[in-house]
């Protein structure tokens, strides 16, 4: 199981109907499968291939990543505040390791 440290920045309170930005960052080397080690052997591909954001259990944003995404993938996206609850962030890599992070949000 690979280790990865995820960081998420989202506002704690937002007004209803307001559009807010969510910034996500996860530490992961995103090995492309193109590099070679000192012995000339190809280092196998090992990337996070999927990222999903759920708002109160409902999927609101997702991405599929390929090896052309940089190491330590950073993604900033937008959401609209509908009601108070939780934002869940789920990253999945080639080995099937799942990294999760969640943030509470209060809608006023």
């Amino acid at each position: 199981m690979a280790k990865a440290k995820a960081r998420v920045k989202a506002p704690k309170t937002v007004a209803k109907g307001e559009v807010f930005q969510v910034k996500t960052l996860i530490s992961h080397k995103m090995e492309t499968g193109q590099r070679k080690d000192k012995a000339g052997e190809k280092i196998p591909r090992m990337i996070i291939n999927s990222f999903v954001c759920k708002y109160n259990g409902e999927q609101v944003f997702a991405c599929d990543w390929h090896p052309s995404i940089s190491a330590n993938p950073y993604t900033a996206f937008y959401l609209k505040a509908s009601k108070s609850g939780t934002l869940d962030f789920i990253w999945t890599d080639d080995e099937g390791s799942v990294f999760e992070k969640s943030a509470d949000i209060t809608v006023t």
Partner: protein
Amino acid sequence: MVRKIEMKPVSRRDILGFAGAAAFAVVATSLYPKAAGAAPADVDAAVKALIGSSETMAGRITIELPQIAENGNTVPLGFEIESPMSDSDYVKSVSVFADKNPFPDVATFHFTPASARAKISTRMRLAKTQNVIVVAQMSDGSVYMAKSEVKVTIGGCGG
């Protein structure tokens, strides 16, 4: 019988001309090796596989990319698609391609009306100077496409 051997002096200009042609041949072959990553044709195929026979339209897409990227390992990429993002009219997905990376696919982003704005910033790898292509699929089935060229100083796909 005396055979007359004629020796023409080789001029400096002749030597330069020959050296120049040889150098050009070497550069030409090293610049265009046969299997150098993905050709633009691969990108066309990838886009076609994604959108089928739909016509692509210009406009509605704003790409934010540097003109010159010093480090191809982390090139900041941003885009925004103009859309009301309402329940009936929103951006369904946006795919990003790089036509000279070993794999032309970069990423696909799936939006919902709850996304409110089809705007992303992320970071991508670019192996060399090339075009980045953004294809946006709308909820009504229309497809928009835009591209932007980035000059890369140091490539970012390992060697």
